Every structure is written in structure tokens, then in C-alpha cells.
């Protein structure tokens, strides 16, 4: 219960961001769908196309729709010579607005086409212009139906807004994603609870507006709208001092180590007098782009990830060659500064249960090859599509009997419970020691090096103050310390928050 109350402490700023995003998306949805509905009600051809497209959008998973806006906005930005942010608020806004279209559009069109023809004939008969007919007759008569559509859209939008976390827009999803990752169920619960409560509250207020319109009670309509407006004003309040010279945003991908390191970085910068904001749960591919575009100022990535994913290199040279290659490439093509290695590596490391490995006599990936067809392989969500897996298959000719992707946490669970026999673990993961896993060696050197590196956005390339604040972290974090800190967050009992683990890590490495 205390864990839940602690978690609720993180809600207010995220709730504000969440509400702001959902409200703007809903507003944009209304602004687009109402005129479209008016045209659609008069032209059945337009209605077919508009409703068809809106329905089609609904069939795209929200997560995919959010992700799709990234390349779209990026190319759009390139087209107009830059300046359009491809991450954060804008793609979230656009994706959620598209979702809001259908219920409003469908209700408005149904309402307009279903109006009593006699009333329309009377409106024409008394000499109304098209605009007067819309304003005095059609709009008031379909308002309750349209409001019902807006309510549906509001609930959907507030729910789907949790997913905007993945494209770098803070929302209540931050808590859900972070909680899922670190198995902090109190955090997940607090995030879900807050999002649900927000949805219900907004739905209730809009319901009041709907009934107020239907019952011709102006007072009730205005009171409900006033409460919504006050909520928005409160949500906007923290936005006013946004930006400014001392304000920095620290990025983190969606796993424990990233959450912990972002806090360590944040503490260094706060000590140097910066005002710090965290943008957590970024998709792996999203983070570097967020950095290049200046959406975030600094984050931790891994040489092998950039080498294989972003630079699309299939060869696997020694660790230092990869580091040098990434440093050059980042500076040249992205203007991103690689400040240095943190000191530990977080590589993919094939692992098995210790007793199982001993029983089967497996010590290296090569030993797996003859028995692999009888083994079940569990991976994180992306591994099966990653170039490392292609490289391993190429080098060893490895084919598992079955292969299933999981959330990283559940990947370990699958191994532990015997639902899987082999996983690509992370070498800095505390659970390797805790679960007594055997890490298999890679005699053919198929998996590239994954040194953790500190990357700075272009605007800090020559920022001496910023770099001085962060330089003490370089080469300072040994893999044992990182593993132990990760385990504080990932273990099942007496779990620590990433914040607490960061404090522990700082003490351990002597800050």
C-alpha cells in the first residue's frame, strides 16, 4: 500500500502532461471531424471515403500508428528544410487525433442524416440560409449525439495516450512502462489507476454537458465545461517556465539500467545547477533520433546497438574499433558527441540455467548447435529481428526448436520456470548472478561489443559546462556495480526504485 502511495506521488506532473496531450488531440479531432461530418452528411460519396478512412485508422494498433508518424514527420521535416519535431508531442498529437476522428465523425454524420426531413423542409421553407439552418436547427438537434461521440473519443484518447511514452512524450504511460520493466506493480497500478480515473472523470463531465444540451440546461453545460477548463489550466501551469538556458532533458530507453543511469546523470547535472526533466521509456530506435533532433539532451546508448541497428554494419570488429567507428559516425552524420565509455558492457550474452547447462555440457554457443533443435529459445521483443541474431545464425548455423519473444522481464521468467532453455540475456543484468545462469562464450566473436556510452545532443557539442558536469562518469562504472544496481530494481523482493538504485550506485562508485 505504501509502495502504491509512493508511486502516486509521481502522478501529478505526468497526469498534467497526459491531460494536455489528450485534450489537444481531442480538440484537433473535433476541429477536423465536425466540418468533415457536415460535408459528409450532404455528400454520400464524401461520407463513404471519410468514414472508411477513419475506420481503417482504428484497425491500426495505436503503437504502430505512433511509430509510423516518426518516418512520416521526418521526411516531411526534410522536405520543408527541417524544424518539424518527429518525436514527442507532435506525433502523439497527430496519432491520437486520428483515433478521435471516427466516433465523432460517425455520430455526427448519423445524427445529421437522421434528422426529421420535415424539420429540414420547414427550415428551408421559412427562408433560412444554409448557415442559419446549420446553426439554428441542425447543430442544436445533433448536439447530444455528437457529444456522445466526443465522450467516446475522449475515453479512447485518454487510454491510448499512455502509449505516447514510446515516442518520447511524457504521459501516465511512463509509469506503466517503467513499472512493467522493473516489475514494480505498484507503479503499473498507479499509472493504470490514474489513467482510468482521468478517463472516467472527463467522461462524467462530458456526460453532464451532453445531458445539459439534451435537457436545454445551459447552466449545467457551462458548469461542466468550466470544471474541464480549470483542469486544463492546472495542467498547463507547469508548462509556463518550460525551456530556458538551465533546462535539460535526459532520455532513457525502457529498461531498468537506463532508468537508473538517467537518474545518475540527472543528479550530476542538478549538482551543476541544471533543472532536469526525464523522458523515459523511449523506444530503442527513437532515442538516438530524439537526441539528434535536440528533443533530449543526453542519454546512454551502447556501441553495438548503434553499430548494428543504425549504421547497419554486419561485420564485427574488435570493441575499440566499433567504439571509434560509432564516435566518428555520430559526430559526422548526426552532430552527436560521444563523451566516452561508462566502463561496463551490456552485450547480448546467451545464457542457460546453470544446472541445465552443466547437465547438457554446454559452455559456448558452439556447443548449442548439435542440440539446438530440441531447445526452446526465449528472447526480448526485438532480438529475433536484430542483426546480432542474424550474425550468430550465420556464424554458427544455429536453429532452435522454437523461438518466442517476451518482455525482457518475462524472458528471464520463462528461462527460470523451464518454459525456455536459452535466452539472449544482457551481460550487465543482475539476474545473471541472482538466477545462477551460465553465460555461454562466443568463440567465433559473432556478437559485437556493447560498451555503454554517454551521448550528447548537437547543442552540447561545445558546451564545456555541461561536459564538465558529466565527465566524472566516464570509465567510472564497472560491470559488477551496474549488475548489482540493476538487481536492486529487478529482483522480486524488497525492490528499490530506480531513484534509490541510482543513489546506491553513486555511493558504490564514490560520488
Amino acid at each position, binding site marked *: 500500500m505504501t509502495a502504491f502511495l509512493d508511486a502516486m506521488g509521481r502522478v501529478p506532473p505526468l497526469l498534467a502532461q497526459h491531460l494536455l496531450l489528450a485534450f489537444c488531440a481531442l480538440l484537433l479531432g473535433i476541429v477536423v471531424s465536425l466540418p468533415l461530418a457536415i460535408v459528409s452528411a450532404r455528400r454520400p460519396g464524401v461520407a463513404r471515403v471519410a468514414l472508411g478512412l477513419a475506420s481503417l485508422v482504428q484497425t491500426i494498433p495505436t503503437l504502430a500508428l505512433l511509430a509510423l508518424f516518426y518516418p512520416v514527420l521526418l521526411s516531411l521535416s526534410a522536405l520543408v528544410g527541417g524544424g518539424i519535431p518527429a518525436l514527442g508531442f507532435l506525433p502523439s498529437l497527430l496519432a491520437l487525433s486520428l483515433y478521435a476522428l471516427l466516433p465523432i465523425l460517425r455520430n455526427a454524420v448519423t445524427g445529421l442524416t437522421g434528422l*426529421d*426531413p*420535415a*424539420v*429540414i*423542409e*420547414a*427550415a*428551408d*421553407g*421559412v*427562408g*433560412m*440560409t444554409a448557415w*442559419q439552418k446549420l446553426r*439554428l*436547427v441542425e447543430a*442544436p*438537434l445533433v448536439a447530444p449525439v455528437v457529444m456522445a461521440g466526443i465522450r467516446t473519443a475522449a475515453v479512447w484518447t485518454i487510454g491510448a495516450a499512455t502509449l505516447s511514452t514510446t515516442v518520447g512524450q511524457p504521459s501516465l504511460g511512463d509509469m506503466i512502462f517503467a513499472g512493467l520493466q522493473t516489475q514494480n506493480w505498484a507503479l503499473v497500478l498507479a499509472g493504470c489507476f490514474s489513467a482510468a480515473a482521468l478517463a472516467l472523470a472527463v467522461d462524467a463531465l462530458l456526460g453532464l454537458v451532453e445531458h445539459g444540451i439534451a435537457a*436545454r440546461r445551459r447552466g449545467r453545460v457551462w458548469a461542466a465545461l468550466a470544471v474541464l477548463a480549470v483542469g486544463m489550466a492546472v495542467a498547463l501551469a507547469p508548462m509556463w517556465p518550460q525551456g530556458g538556458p538551465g533546462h535539460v532533458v535526459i532520455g532513457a530507453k525502457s529498461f531498468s539500467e537506463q532508468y537508473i543511469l538517467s537518474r545518475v546523470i540527472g543528479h550530476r547535472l542538478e549538482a551543476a545547477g541544471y533543472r532536469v526533466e526525464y523522458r523515459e521509456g523511449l523506444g530503442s530506435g527513437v532515442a538516438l533520433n530524439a537526441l539528434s533532433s535536440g528533443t533530449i539532451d543526453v542519454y546512454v546508448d551502447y556501441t553495438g546497438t548503434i553499430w548494428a541497428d543504425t549504421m547497419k554494419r554486419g561485420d564485427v570488429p574488435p570493441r575499440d574499433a566499433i567504439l571509434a567507428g560509432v564516435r566518428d559516425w555520430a559526430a559526422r552524420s548526426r552532430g552527436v558527441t560521444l563523451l566516452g565509455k561508462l566502463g561496463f558492457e551490456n552485450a547480448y550474452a546467451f545464457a542457460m540455467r546453470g544446472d541445465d547447462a552443466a547437465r547438457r555440457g554446454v559452455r559456448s554457443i558452439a556447443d548449442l548447435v548439435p542440440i539446438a533443435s530440441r531447445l526452446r529459445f526465449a528472447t526480448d521483443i526485438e532480438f529475433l529481428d536484430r542483426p546480432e541474431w542474424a550474425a550468430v545464425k550465420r556464424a554458427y548455423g544455429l536453429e532452435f526448436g522454437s523461438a518466442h519473444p517476451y518482455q525482457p522481464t518475462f524472458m528471464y521468467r520463462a528461462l527460470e520456470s523451464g518454459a525456455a532453455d536459452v535466452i539472449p540475456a544482457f551481460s550487465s543484468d543482475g539476474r545473471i548472478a541472482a538466477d545462477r545462469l551460465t553465460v555461454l562464450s562466443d568463440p567465433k566473436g559473432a556478437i559485437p561489443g556493447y560498451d555503454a556510452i554517454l551521448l550528447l545532443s548537437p547543442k552540447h557539442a561545445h558546451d564545456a559546462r555541461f561536459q564538465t558536469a558529466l565527465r566524472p562518469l566516464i570509465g567510472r562504472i564497472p560491470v559488477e556495480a551496474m549488475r548489482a544496481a540493476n538487481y536492486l530494481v529487478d529482483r522480486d523482493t524488497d525492490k528499490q526504485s530506480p531513484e534509490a538504485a541510482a543513489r546506491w550506485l553513486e555511493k558504490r562508485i564514490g560520488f
Partner: protein
Amino acid sequence: MAASRDTDLSVAFAGVSKHYAGGAVAVDDVSIEIAGGSFVALVGASGSGKSTLLKMINRLIEPSAGQIRIGGADVTGEPPFRLRRRIGYVFQNIGLFPHLSVAENIAIGLRLTGRKDRDGRIAELLDLVDLPQEYSRRMPDALSGGQRQRVGVARALALEPGLMLMDEPFGALDPVTRDQLGRSIRRLHDRLGLTTIMVTHDMAEALILADRVLVMARGRIVADATPPELLAGEGGAEADALVSVPREQARRLREIGGGA
């Protein structure tokens, strides 16, 4: 009240036709003149084109060919909404605005034209259609069918039109209400000096209320006569067929009465 109104508005059709895509002909080359101040009934079976002919006057339907003039002026000479504000329109389904009160319904034309002092005019109109003043705050769904059509008539009269178009105005009413409202309409016509064109399929109603009856069939006017002429059998075969129905009914009623 009559001061601002166009009086004695004549309506003239010249070669007016309405064809629909697919070849259906609703109105077929009608040319006729309706004198200002007259009460004309358009009678015919369903599909004879009478409603279409009526609705082309206030351009709820646009003719395929021909010209319509009101008081000598072509109806296409101004935007439809301006034309319609000078013409009262009452129809079978009434079409009261369900979200507006009786007073707001009656005053809608005044609102459209930005007229002030609506309250006085609303009171006047309620009197005109024999509705009590306290009805002004009621909503349409709290009225009987006859009361609703009275509100519909008041709404049509609000802007003091010189011309009233009525499309089966009593079609959905019971016979008693029908008779009462018919008398009211005729009184209003005489008192306000209106030109009234009423579509009906009920020949008895046409004979009782109108000065002149036009009988339509297959989109054409097949008879044009006063009620006495029609009753005297001077309207031709099509008209006689229609007149014979109420005449026969009246005869049988007399027989029943005489036999009792």
C-alpha cells in the same frame, strides 16, 4: 399590419415542367395564371404533380423548364432564402423545430430577419390562429396535432407574407380539427388579403374552401373551374370523377337521415 405587405400577389406559370432523371415527368408543361387575392385549391390523386407544382413556387423544387412569376417578378431573381421569407409555407408534416418553444418557433422568421419586439408580434400571431397566450412557452411535443398545425400557420404568417402555400395542411388531422382549421385558414385569407394556394386530395375540402379549383392528373391541369361550375358538372370527366365522391357520400348520408 397590412401596410408592409405585398397585397394581391398573382402567381403565373409559363411552360413549367419538372422531369426527373430516369424519365419520370412530375409536371408537364403547365401554363396558368392565379389572380392576386384568390384562394385556389390544387386537387388530384397522389402522384398527379400537385405538390411538385406548389413547391416550385418557393423553389423547394427547381423546375426543369419554364418560368414562374410572383406579382410579375421572376422567382429566380433573388436567392431562394429571400424569396421564401416573403412566402408563407405550411405543409402536412408541419416541421416544428422540436428544440424550440412555441414562441421561438413562431418567431423564427423574425429572428432570421433580425426584427426586434418579437414578443408583441408573437402574441398577435397566437391570437390570429386562436391559440391561448400561455401556449407560447410550451414545447411542440406538448401540443396536439391541430395545435401544432396552428403554430405552423402562425410561423408561416409571422413575416406578413402576401402569398400562402399550403401542401395538404390538414392531411394528418382528425375530421373535426380539420374542419375547424379549414375555417380558420379561410378567415385568415379573407382578413389578411392573402393569395392562397392549397394542395389537397380531398375534393370536398377544395369545394368548400376555395374560390377556384385546379384539378391535376399526370402532371397536367385537366380542369380549371369554380366550385359551382364543378358541382354543375362543367369541369370535365376527370373533375366529375372527383366531385362525384363527396356528392355520392352526401346523398347516402341524406338517405340514412331520411330513412331514420
